[in-house]
């Protein structure tokens, strides 16, 4: 793509709290950009459902899980919209989508305002330096107050929110908006609000508009000397203001705020103008890759079409015609028939079909340039893989993948389901690195693990619907771990001299808690009491022991094993002998080292009307939760707490009945912490009982 064209390119995300109308807004955008020709509502009566939620399950639940990419064109601007999920259980999806965005629209509900999920998403966007504009939606609803929401954006999200519009009427009386840049009133006529009508600002709003424009100019002039001069001398032009706002937005120093109601077809077209005017093009963003041939040195990518290709696979989907891989090109161009390299596997891949996606429909294209988002057909890869041209070996920096906190057993009901289940698991684990599956060799059960109850539920549903794999589901299991609390010595001799070649090895040393990291092996042997060639055998023996702790059989973490003494035999010592000696030494030391159980602690945020604060805190307290803090604003309360995951099962039902459905909660993994003694004893007992049953 030519530089000139790239300036007209926008890769944006639409990100929001659940239920703030993200899917409805996307639907309207596609309608006004003429990508679709009729408007369907989420959970609509016509049974068709909004276009972006492409998976059936999403349609049924009214939530968006996968971040499908969709293309549209607005006044000559090419816009790729990455729809991002609004639930914390799917944050890896959100984070991955954020990597490929150049800018984002943050949707907020004019009544609910900034809620905990918006805070989480905003934090993630700040981490990936994504410039944002805000859209305060649902201004037609009772209790709408965009000014309050703008204030919350400043206070709770720490963003410099600047109103770019003011509403003409609110709630049921909302008629349109006043554009503070052009100082015109805008109304939305026609059946679907498709005709924008510009008028003079209504008399009663003049003063308010003048005042807010003043604020806007004050803020914008920080980013443009030209604008500052123009303001001092008289009337600044629309172009000057737009230019300054754009600079402030791209520098992440300013968040322009727009208002409207997507459902009532108000304010969507001005938002599209804002995407074009204020959000960055791929040229405005610096992207960095790691050079694998050069010790992972950082390389700045060029956005140049002549340079060698660098492209990131950020999303896989199982389409009707096989695997569909969404890629974002950062540099160079991707043509049909090209041979590209997957830098993770080193394998050559031939580009077959290249398509531009519009939700379920697709458009075949021959070539795509730097900055574009397209999909490839029939390419085998995992999500997060980097593709490059032959002459370079770059990787986009690897993404942080958190450890799973919850697991459950799934049992296929029959043979057919067994086959389909394997296919489904194979696909899901490729799509989502936080979703894992393995077979427990002791029970022969298939175990899936992930980031939360809902996370696993969604995959089980998808197995049924998309793969026809009916499975029975075991009770969710918390991923406990074991660790030690104090230093302990070991000195263990492994000896076997009955028949055949003998085995001999003695390992002496100590183990101690490791504050950071999972396992460390330190060799302090002097004088060769354990021969060089067997040191690594000791390491192997210890690390093998970490897989299953002697307390309750959970994986062990946070241990440093130090060896400083030992003995060997000229004939009978071997790799195996020292591995077994180390396993014995580990066991000996471990039980003396005060082993304890650790459990995942979740950060749980509950929000709702203040009248329920006491009840909410009580319910968290009952679940062994620590109330970290509360936040109270007018009639609205948020409670932040840390609660063990094992206590959170079924909490949504409890919360609903406790608060008449008026409160909601989000939960994300915080850390592993020691299980209190009484609880720990129960868990260990439970494990022992199960083991007995097996025998």
């Amino acid at each position, binding site marked *: 793509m030519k530089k000139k064209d790239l300036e007209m390119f926008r890769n944006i995300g639409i990100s929001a709290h659940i239920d703030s109308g993200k899917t409805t807004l996307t639907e309207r955008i596609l309608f006004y950009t003429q990508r679709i020709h009729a408007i369907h509502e989420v959970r609509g009566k016509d049974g068709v459902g909004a276009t972006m939620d492409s998976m059936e399950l999403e349609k049924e639940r009214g939530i968006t899980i996968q971040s499908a990419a969709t293309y549209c064109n607005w006044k000559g601007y090419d816009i790729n919209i990455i729809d991002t999920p609004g639930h914390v259980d799917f944050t890896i999806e959100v984070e991955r989508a954020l990597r490929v965005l150049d800018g984002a629209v943050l949707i907020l509900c004019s009544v609910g305002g900034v809620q905990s999920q918006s805070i989480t998403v905003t934090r993630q966007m700040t981490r990936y330096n994504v410039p944002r504009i805000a859209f305060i939606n649902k201004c037609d609803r009772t209790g709408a107050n965009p000014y309050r929401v703008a204030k919350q954006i400043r206070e709770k999200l720490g963003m410099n929110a600047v109103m770019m519009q003011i509403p003409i009427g609110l709630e049921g009386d909302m008629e349109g908006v006043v554009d503070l840049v052009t100082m015109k009133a805008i109304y939305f006529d026609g059946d679907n609000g498709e005709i924008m009508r510009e008028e003079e600002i209504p008399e009663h709003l003049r003063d308010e508009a003048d005042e807010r424009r003043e604020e806007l100019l004050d803020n914008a002039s920080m980013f443009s000397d030209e604008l500052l001069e123009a303001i001092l001398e008289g009337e600044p032009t629309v172009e000057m203001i737009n230019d300054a706002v754009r600079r402030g937005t791209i520098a992440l120093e300013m968040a322009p705020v727009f208002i409207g109601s997507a459902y009532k077809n108000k304010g969507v077209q001005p938002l599209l103008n804002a995407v074009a005017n204020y959000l960055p093009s791929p040229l405005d963003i610096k992207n960095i890759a790691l050079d694998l041939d050069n010790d992972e040195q950082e390389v700045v990518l060029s956005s140049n079409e002549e340079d060698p290709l660098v492209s990131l696979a950020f999303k896989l989907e199982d389409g009707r015609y096989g695997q569909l891989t969404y890629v974002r090109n950062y540099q160079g161009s991707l043509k049909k028939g090209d041979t590209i390299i997957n830098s993770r596997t080193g394998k050559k891949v031939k580009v077959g079909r290249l398509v531009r996606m519009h939700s379920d429909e697709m458009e075949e294209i021959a070539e795509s340039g730097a900055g574009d988002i397209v999909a490839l057909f029939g390419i085998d890869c995992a999500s997060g893989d980097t593709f490059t041209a032959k002459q370079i070996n770059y990787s986009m920096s690897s993404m942080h993948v958190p450890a799973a906190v919850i697991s459950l057993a799934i049992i296929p009901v029959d043979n057919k389901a067994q086959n389909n289940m394997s296919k489904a698991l194979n696909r899901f684990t490729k799509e989502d690195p936080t979703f894992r599956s393995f077979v427990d060799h002791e029970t022969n059960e298939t175990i899936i693990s992930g980031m939360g109850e809902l996370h696993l539920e969604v995959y089980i549903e998808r197995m049924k619907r998309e793969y026809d794999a009916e499975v029975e589901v075991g009770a969710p299991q918390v991923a406990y771990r074991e660790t030690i609390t104090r230093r302990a010595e070991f000195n263990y001799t492994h000896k076997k001299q009955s028949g055949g070649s003998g085995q001999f090895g003695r390992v002496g040393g100590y183990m101690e808690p490791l504050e950071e990291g999972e396992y460390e092996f330190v060799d302090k042997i002097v004088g060769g009491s354990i021969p060089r060639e067997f040191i690594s055998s000791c390491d192997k023996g210890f690390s093998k022991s970490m897989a299953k702790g002697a307390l309750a059989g959970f994986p062990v973490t946070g241990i440093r094993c130090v060896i400083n003494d030992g003995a060997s035999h000229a004939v009978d010592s071997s790799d195996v002998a020292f591995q077994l000696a180390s396993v014995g030494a580990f066991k000996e030391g471990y039980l003396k080292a005060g082993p304890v159980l650790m459990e995942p602690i979740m950060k749980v945020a509950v929000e709702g009307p203040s009248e329920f*604060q006491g009840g909410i805190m009580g319910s968290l307290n009952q679940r062994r939760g*620590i109330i970290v*803090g*509360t*936040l109270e604003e007018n009639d609205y309360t948020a409670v932040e707490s840390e609660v063990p995951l094992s206590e959170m099962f079924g909490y949504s039902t409890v919360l609903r009945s406790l608060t008449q459905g008026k409160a909601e909660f989000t939960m994300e993994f915080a850390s592993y912490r020691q299980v209190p003694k009484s609880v720990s004893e129960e868990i260990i007992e439970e494990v022992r009982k199960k083991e007995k049953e097996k025998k």
Partner: protein
Amino acid sequence: MQKQDLINNNPLRALSPAGELQSVGRVSLVMARAGVGKTAILVQIALDKMLRGKNILHVSIGQSLDKTKVWYDDIFNSIVEGKKLENMVSIREDMIRHRMIMTFNAETFSVPKLEERLRDLVDQNIFRPDCLLVDGFDCAKTSAEELSDMRDLMASMEMNIWISARSHRDDDRVSNSGVPAPCHELDSLFDTVILLEPKPEEKSIALNVIKDTASAGEPGKILNLDPATLMLKA
């Protein structure tokens, strides 16, 4: 270093009201101009109590929960910096159990509301604080009756309270014992009053105890804060 050394070496030990653990129902006030270190001193008092196993309720008016947590993290880090504290991770985890933070925006906060919330916590057995710290208290908005109710409440619940309030450059009214506006009219309701006064020529901030009903001896004992870190100096 052991936890106990950390407690014993705390410069706060030199200050009798903050060192006091036994007495209850005390109402103490820290006053200063904006940015001098009111929050920092409250957090240091709170951390000292948490280390000694007391529960504290930090009430923050106009500051977010995250910001308040950062204050605690930063000051704890400064306290243990370079001290090679043993079992630091578990001490830190243990301390968090002794703390709860309540944040209000300025419009929502009132003394009766705080009282209601406090009763909720105690009655439901969710959290029983030994000490309250109210950061960003507006004396101008509070009547003598309300504050006196608060005093009674603290006494009946066997708690202590520390309040921080901001004084203003252009308002030079003071009470007889030297409490500046806007808290001058509530003077008699405080057991301890500490003023933070920047001393640019000495490169420090003086912690000036202008009133202290508990100490038999000299009010006017002075500790100092390092203006860069806002940490108490021994």
